[in-house]
C-alpha cells in the first residue's frame, strides 16, 4: 500500500505542457480549412433589428458568410435564453449578438463584422439598478433553494433585541474574466458534430447542443482538454459554442469563435450587484436573538438569475429568529450568472461585516463573538452538521496571525502616513456532490488508466484523480494515467459548485476499488485489452444526507491605508480552512490562495460599472477591470485543519475551489475599519471612496 497518494503535494501532470505552450486550448485546434468567426454586438440597449446589410462585409475578400437573425440555422428553443442566438430580431440588451461574420482569417472576420450595417428600431430601456424599484419581486428560488426562509418571528425578535445593528452593504457587478476567453472550434462531418470548447463541463455542452441542433448525443463529441479558467462563467455552455456550431454548419467549414475580451462582459455572465440589508439583534452577552438578511439584486430580461447572497445566513450562526430573503429586479442588462462562490462571496461579505459591526457595538472581540454564536445544528434546516470546525479555524488563525496582540481600538495604529488595521471574517461553502461515472482499466504492463469526462480548468483535477485512483488501487501514483476532458469518456458533472473532485473522485474511487477486488481474484497474466471496470454513483452521490454539510474557514487580513491618497493595500492575508481531507496539498494551496486573491480584488480593486445610459459595462478589458496585480498581493498564506468527516464521500473531502474567496472581502473591509475607524459599506475600497471618507470623517 502506498498510503501517501492522497494528500501528497503531487505536481500538476500537465504543468510542463502548459508552461511550454504544448497544451492545446479550444481555439488552437487548427483543423484543415478552419475559418474564424467574429460577433457583431448590438449597439442599442434594447430594441429590434430591422435590417442587416451584409453587402459591404461580404464584398471583402476572404469573407465566407455573415449569419444574421434572418438566415442563421434554426435552433430548438433552449432552456437557457442566452443561447437563443440569432433566432429572432429582438435585442434584449447591448452587446447581444446580432450577427456573426465568418472568414478565412481572424482579421478578416473582424473587419467583416465591423462592415456589417445593422439598423435598429430602438426602444426605451431601463438599466438603472435601485433597490426601491417597484418592479423588484421575490423569486421562488434563489440558487436552487427557497428564495425566502424564515424561522421564528424575526421582526419582533429584532425589535425586542437589546443590542441592534441595522446596516446595508453593497457589492457592485463583478466579472469572472478567466485568462482564456470563451472559445470554441466546431466541425461537422455530415451530421456528426465535434466541438473543442473552453468549458467547465463538457457533458452538459453535449446535451445542450444535442437539444438545440436536434441531434443524438452520440453524434456529438465535445473536447475540453485544457481550460484556462472559468470561475463559473464556463459552468454551462455559453453562446460561443452555439455560434461556432451554427457557423460551421452554415459554411461547411470548421469554425473557431474566440470571443474577444471586450465582448465577454456582456455575453458570458457577471456577478449581479447586490444591496444587502442586515439586521442583527443580540442580547448583551452577544448572543444573536435575530438575524435578518434581505438581498436585492438584478437580473436580465433574458432569464432569471438570482445572486443568492442571503443563503449563507441560513448556515452560519445560532439564532432563534431568522429571515433570509431575496428580491430581484429585471432590467435591460446583460444576463448575470455564476461567479466564484455565487451567493456566499457577496453574502458573507455583508454578513461578516455586519457581525464585525456588532462586535464593535458590544465591545466584544470579533473572533470571540463568532465562537459564541456557533450553532449546534444548522439554523435553517435543524440538521446536525456532518463536521464543523469554524471555531477551530478562527482560533488557529488568530494564533498564527498574532490576533491576541491586537489593540481593538479603531484608528490606533499609525505608521507615518499609513493607518494600519487587522480584520477577521468567517468563510463557508456548501458541500455539493453529483452523480458521476468513471472507468478504471488495468493493463498487462502493470499500469492503469482512469477515464472520466471531468474538466481540468486549471485546478489540477487530472492529478488529484490519479491520486484518488492510486490510493484506491494501492499502487504508486506514476502507474496511473488519467484521461479527462472528452465526451467519449464516461459522463461526469461539471467543475462547478466546488463539487468536481468530490463527484468525480467518488466514481473513480468506486471503479478503482472494484477493479482492485477483481485483480485480487484474478490469477495469471491479464488479457491484452486489460480488465476494465465502470462505476456509476447515481443514487449514492445524490442521496439525501441527514447532515448539513459545509466547509468552513477563517480569514485574517492586515491592511495599510494611505491617508495621503486613500490607497488601501493588503499587507498580509491568512486563511485557515476546514474542508475535510485535503487531497493534494500543492494544488489545494493554489486554489485557496488564488481564491483569496480574487477576494482581495473584490475588496479593493474589482468592479464593473453598469452604464445606465448605454446599458452595458464601462470596463470591457483587463486594463480597465482591475484584477489584483502581483504587487497587490505581497504576503498570502493558506492552510487547513485536516477534518475527519465520514459523511461525505469515500475520500472524505469537501470542495475547495470557492471557499477561499468567501469572507476575504469582509476581512479586508473589517481591517480597513480597524485602521481608519470608518465603516465602508460599498465595495470596492478604491482611493476615491476611501480618501473622500477620510477627509469628511477624519
Amino acid at each position, binding site marked *: 500500500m502506498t498510503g501517501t497518494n492522497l494528500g501528497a503535494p503531487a505536481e500538476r501532470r500537465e504543468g510542463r505542457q502548459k508552461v511550454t505552450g504544448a497544451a492545446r486550448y479550444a481555439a488552437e485546434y487548427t483543423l484543415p480549412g478552419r475559418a474564424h468567426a467574429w460577433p457583431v454586438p448590438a449597439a442599442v440597449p434594447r430594441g429590434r433589428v430591422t435590417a442587416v446589410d451584409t453587402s459591404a462585409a461580404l464584398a471583402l475578400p476572404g469573407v465566407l458568410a455573415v449569419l444574421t437573425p434572418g438566415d442563421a440555422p434554426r435552433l430548438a428553443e433552449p432552456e437557457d435564453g442566452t443561447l437563443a442566438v440569432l433566432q429572432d430580431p429582438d435585442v434584449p440588451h447591448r452587446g447581444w449578438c446580432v450577427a456573426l461574420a465568418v472568414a478565412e482569417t481572424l482579421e478578416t472576420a473582424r473587419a467583416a463584422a465591423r462592415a456589417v450595417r445593422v439598423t435598429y428600431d430602438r426602444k426605451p430601456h431601463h438599466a438603472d439598478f435601485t433597490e426601491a424599484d417597484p418592479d423588484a419581486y421575490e423569486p421562488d428560488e434563489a440558487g436552487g433553494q427557497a428564495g425566502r426562509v424564515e424561522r421564528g418571528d424575526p421582526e419582533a425578535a429584532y425589535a425586542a433585541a437589546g443590542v441592534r445593528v441595522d446596516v446595508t452593504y453593497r457589492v457592485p457587478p463583478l466579472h469572472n474574466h478567466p485568462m482564456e476567453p470563451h472559445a470554441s472550434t466546431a466541425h461537422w462531418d455530415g451530421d456528426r458534430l465535434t466541438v473543442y470548447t473552453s468549458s467547465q463541463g463538457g457533458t452538459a455542452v453535449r446535451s445542450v447542443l444535442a437539444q438545440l441542433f436536434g441531434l443524438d448525443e452520440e453524434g456529438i463529441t465535445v473536447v475540453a482538454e485544457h481550460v484556462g479558467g472559468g470561475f463559473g462563467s464556463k459552468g454551462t455552455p455559453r453562446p460561443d459554442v452555439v455560434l461556432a456550431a451554427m457557423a460551421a454548419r452554415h459554411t461547411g467549414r470548421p469554425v473557431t469563435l474566440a470571443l474577444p475580451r471586450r465582448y465577454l462582459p456582456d455575453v458570458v455572465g457577471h456577478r449581479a450587484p447586490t444591496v444587502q440589508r442586515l439586521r442583527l439583534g443580540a442580547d448583551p452577552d452577544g448572543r444573536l436573538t435575530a438575524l435578518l438578511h434581505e438581498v436585492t439584486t438584478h437580473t436580465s430580461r433574458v432569464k432569471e438569475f438570482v445572486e443568492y447572497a442571503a443563503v449563507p445566513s441560513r448556515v452560519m450562526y445560532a439564532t432563534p429568529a431568522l429571515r433570509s430573503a431575496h428580491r430581484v429586479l429585471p432590467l435591460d442588462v446583460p444576463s448575470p450568472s455564476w461567479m466564484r462562490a455565487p451567493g456566499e462571496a457577496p453574502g458573507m461579505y455583508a454578513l461578516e461585516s455586519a457581525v464585525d459591526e456588532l462586535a464593535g457595538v458590544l465591545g466584544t472581540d470579533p473572533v470571540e463573538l463568532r465562537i459564541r454564536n456557533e450553532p449546534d445544528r444548522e439554523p435553517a434546516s435543524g440538521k446536525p452538521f456532518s463536521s464543523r470546525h469554524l471555531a477551530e479555524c478562527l482560533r488557529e488563525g488568530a494564533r498564527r496571525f498574532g490576533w491576541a496582540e491586537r489593540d481593538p481600538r479603531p484608528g490606533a495604529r499609525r505608521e507615518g502616513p499609513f493607518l494600519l488595521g487587522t480584520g477577521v471574517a468567517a468563510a463557508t461553502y456548501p458541500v455539493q456532490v453529483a452523480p458521476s461515472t468513471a472507468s478504471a482499466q488495468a493493463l498487462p504492463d502493470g499500469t492503469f488508466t482512469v477515464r472520466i469526462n471531468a474538466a481540468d480548468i486549471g485546478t489540477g483535477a487530472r492529478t488529484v484523480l490519479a491520486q484518488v485512483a492510486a490510493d484506491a488501487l494501492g499502487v504508486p501514483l506514476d502507474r496511473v494515467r488519467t484521461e479527462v476532458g472528452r465526451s467519449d469518456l464516461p459522463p461526469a458533472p461539471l467543475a462547478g459548485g466546488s463539487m468536481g473532485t468530490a463527484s468525480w473522485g467518488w466514481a473513480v474511487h468506486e471503479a478503482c476499488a472494484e477493479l482492485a477486488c477483481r485483480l485480487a481474484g484474478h490469477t495469471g497474466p491479464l488479457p491484452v485489452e486489460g480488465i476494465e471496470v465502470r462505476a456509476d454513483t447515481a443514487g449514492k452521490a445524490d442521496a439525501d444526507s441527514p447532515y448539513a454539510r459545509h466547509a468552513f474557514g477563517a480569514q485574517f487580513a492586515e491592511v495599510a491605508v494611505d491617508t495621503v491618497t486613500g490607497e488601501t493595500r493588503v499587507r498580509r492575508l491568512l486563511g485557515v480552512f476546514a474542508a475535510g481531507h485535503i487531497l493534494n496539498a500543492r494544488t489545494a494551496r493554489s486554489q485557496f490562495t488564488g481564491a483569496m486573491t480574487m477576494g482581495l480584488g473584490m475588496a479593493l480593486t474589482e468592479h464593473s460599472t453598469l452604464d445606465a445610459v*448605454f446599458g452595458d459595462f464601462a470596463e470591457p478589458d483587463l486594463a480597465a477591470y482591475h484584477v489584483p496585480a502581483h504587487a497587490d498581493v505581497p504576503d498570502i498564506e493558506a492552510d487547513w485543519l485536516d477534518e475527519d468527516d465520514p459523511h461525505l464521500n469515500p475520500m472524505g473531502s469537501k470542495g475547495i475551489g470557492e471557499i477561499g474567496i468567501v469572507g476575504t472581502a469582509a476581512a479586508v473591509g473589517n481591517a480597513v475599519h480597524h485602521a481608519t475607524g470608518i465603516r465602508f459599506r460599498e465595495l470596492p475600497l478604491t482611493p476615491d471612496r476611501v480618501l473622500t471618507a477620510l477627509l469628511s470623517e477624519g
Partner: protein
Amino acid sequence: MNGFAYLRPGSVQEAVEAFAGHPGAHYLAGGTNLVDLMKLGVTRPATLIDVGRLPLGTVEELPDGSLRVGATVRNSDLAADPRVRDRYPVLSQALLAGASGQLRNAATTGGNLLQRTRCPYFQDLGKPCNKREPGTGCGARQGVHRDHAVLGHSEHCVATHPSDMAVALAALDAQVELYGTDGARRVPVDDFYRLPGEHPERDTWIRPGELITGVLLPAATAGVPSAYRKARDRASYAFALASVAVVLRVADGVVDQVGIAFGALAHRPWRARHAELALLGAPAGPAAFEGAVALELAHAEPLRDNAYKVPLARNLALDVLNRLAPAPATAA
C-alpha cells in the same frame, strides 16, 4: 481584413517624405497603443510608416548640459539611464509608474507622448465620442466618468491624457523635437498638448506629417530635486487617478525654482502655473505650498462622480512638495 501598407524608411527625411506621399499614413513605433487602436477599429491607417528602427535610439549629453533623448528610446531604457535617474529622478519615477514591464520594454519616448486617451467611450465604436468621431457627442460627460478630467475640459470632451512620462516632462520644461517637411522645430511639452475645446479630436499641436525625433531635457532643471507620485486603483499596471510631478529648488528657505504638473486631471499634463507663480520667491513651507496648490485647484470643475480628484491631487502635490523642500535650518 483592413489592409494597410507598411513602410520602413531608413531616415527621418525619408519618413516624413513617405508620410507626405501616403494619404492616411500613421507613424508606428512601439505599437503598444496604436496596434490596439487598430484592432478596435478606432484608428484605421492606410499606411504604417515604421519609425521604430530609425537611428533615434540614444540618450546624448549636449554641450550646454542638457540631455537629448531620441524618440525611439524605450521607456524602460530611459527610466534606467543613470543620467536620467541622477539628474531627472521625476522622469525615471514617472516612467516606472506607468504600464507594465513588458509594455515599457516596447513603448518609445515619442510614442508615449502621442498615446491616446483610454476613455472607454473613445475606445468603443458603438458609442458617441467627439474625440474619435467629431460631432457624435460625449458619452462620458453624463456617463461613467470617475477617471475623467476635472480641469480644462469642454462640453465636447472630458477625457484625460494617460501618460505618466509626459507629466514629468511638463514639469521639467522639456521640449519636443519635431521634424516635418517644413524643417525642424522645438516645442515645450507644455505647449505641445491641447485642451479639448471645440476640437477634442486633436490631442496636440503637432502638424500633419511631423515626426517626433526626440525630447530635450534642459540643463536648467538638471540636478534640481524632483519627484513623481501617482495614485491608482491597484499597486501596479493601472492608469493614474491623479498624479503629480514636482521640480523644486529652495535656496535660503525661499523657492528658487519650481515646476509642478498634474496628471490624469485634464486633457493634457496640467502645468500648475498659478501655483508656481505663487511659490516663486515665497518661503518654502507647508503653508505656502498649501496656498499655492489651492490656488491652482480652485480652477477645477469636477463632474458628477470625480470630485475626489481635487483633494487627491492636492494631497499628492503637498506630499511631494513637502518631501522635496529641505527641512528648515534649526536656529542655533
